[in-house]
């Protein structure tokens, strides 16, 4: 299993478009991918479900943990890490 802790810096957190981008990225891999909101202390949720990701209530400034388990787990975590570094395609301020 691969695990990464990431900071969510973009304005709307994992809502709206950034959440959709995150889910589409996770869904592109065969591995099981899950997300936890460490700031809120939520339970692990299916990262391939938009509704589950929205349910984590990730806001700007929160820290998340993403885990992947499966044949392409390394690539999956790498892709999610890149996404977070690019602020999920959304400006950090606004």
């Amino acid at each position, binding site marked *: 299993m691969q695990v990464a802790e990431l*900071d969510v810096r973009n304005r709307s957190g994992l809502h709206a*478009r950034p959440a959709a981008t995150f889910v589409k990225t996770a869904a592109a891999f065969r591995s099981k991918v899950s997300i936890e909101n460490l700031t809120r202390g939520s339970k692990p949720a299916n990262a391939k479900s938009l*509704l589950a990701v929205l349910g984590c209530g990730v806001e700007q*400034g929160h820290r998340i943990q993403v885990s992947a388990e499966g044949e392409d787990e390394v690539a999956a975590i790498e892709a999610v890490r890149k996404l977070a570094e690019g602020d999920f395609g959304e400006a950090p301020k*606004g």
Partner: protein
Amino acid sequence: MSTRIAGTPGAAGVAVGPTWRYSATGTAEARRMPPAVGDPGEALHAAALEAASQLEALADRVRDLGRPDEAGIFEAQAMMATDPELLDEAVARAEAGEDAVSAVRAAADAVGATLAALPDELLAARAADVRDVGARIARILLGEEMDLPGVPSVAVADDLPPSVAAEIPPGFLLGVALEGGSITAHAVILARGLGIPAIVGAKGLTRAAVSATSVAVDGGSGEIVLDPGPDEVADFAARAAALEESRRAAAALRGRPGATADGERVALLANIGSPEDAPRALDAGAEGVGLFRTEFLFMKRQTAPAEAEQVAAYAAAFTAFGPERPVVVRLADIGGDKAIPYLDLPAEANPFLGVRAIRLAAHGSRELLLTQLRAIWRAAGRAGVTPHVMAPMVATLDDARLLLELRDQARADAAATGDPLPEGMVTGVMVEIPSAAILAPELARIVDFFSIGTNDLTQYTMAADRGNPALGHLQDALHPAVLRLIRDVVAGADESHIPVAVCGELAGDPAGALVLVGLGVDELSADAGSLDGIRAALAAVTRAELDDLAGRALAAGDAETVRAMARQLLGRSGQTAAH
């Protein structure tokens, strides 16, 4: 026979037209259709895929129409339609014996309730989106087509989801009357954008409208008339014409400074929440900014904003308005109810009466306020303007002295960086705590201006939580008790010849604006969208009429009486229809 129903005004405007009813659960006849045959799981998956493809097509269409925000909603809804959280729950319910239609509606309700329970208001809108997706899948399972209006109509519904509103061809939606919803509902925002009337919270509407064929709505008053008679239709048509005329007249005054009919100047300023609000304020003819809220820099982050980041934000606003249009920066009104991780403040039982704003300086956050003041000095130097600053939550003379001391220390520190700095900073205090209003004569001797925050001044004077819907009668800033405090603040300011502004909601309400100027307030600051209305209201009355209104308002027994007096004066000058 016509039926009259009262709702809450959502968006101004008047419309008369055929009714078009929308219900998320479809018609009674459709619900009696036999359930789909075959495996409920397969039927659900097929219907979900169809719903996703419909929503993707809808997203493409509105994006082509230049509405990317709406397209984003529908793209997210397309993903929700096939989301395992929703579908697995629906299939599980169907396998347990529920029919597929009930199963998907119940699953959408359950998922929506989970999202709505999170402490984040944005997710409440997502909850409504999930339920709407459930309704769409249910319609597909039932083989129902959405029954869209075939002629321009007034929508009558419990709620009108964005995905339904977007399917209505342009020009076919004349107005919106909702039994549910709040004034922040998507349908209301849509109506404002389209310039059509919207009314929400009209109790009993959907039941009363079951057999209605036409409806008249006045979004300014909240009146709904089902099956209006010829006289009522003529009345609403006259209101529509008067509204159009007064909007045209108000817009024609744009670009002129605010003044009464006999030429007494009243500066009309805009409230802004970030530098990005500047173009809208300038378009509306704002003579400056009376309230630049800076919380956007401090909220939703793990560390305090750096000085350089703040300098850039303030300089952007100062540059947009230039040296002729002053921008009053309000120091961060944070703490208390707004959790700020980097301030490490303890939770408080009464956050609105707690450690917040200027009070933070004495509780370990002096540096936070100094950094903000340094950034304002440097931004003003960079933009070549004289900075205007005010502190919220000032209760005592010591609070005001602390503000002046922080200001001077910040200038000395900023000067050390070698950046060019302006000579002085126009420094004021917000009057929103009754003690500050009582101490106005003394405060006026040491500060340069007052800005009255009517929302908080009312909350603290009446000891009534702004957010508690049970206390509506104690939340009206036109209550004579609040007005007498405002009178005293003006008197205290006059002794030292300093100006008084009002930046609360009351300033943006034409009736409230007349009372405030009557009491001697010099400047009004409101949302850019309110400026046309208050400019037109002031231009239609004289100083003598406002003095008379203020005198009667101070002697009145309650806020409703004051509002009626102000509305009467507005009506006489032909401005009632505007808002």
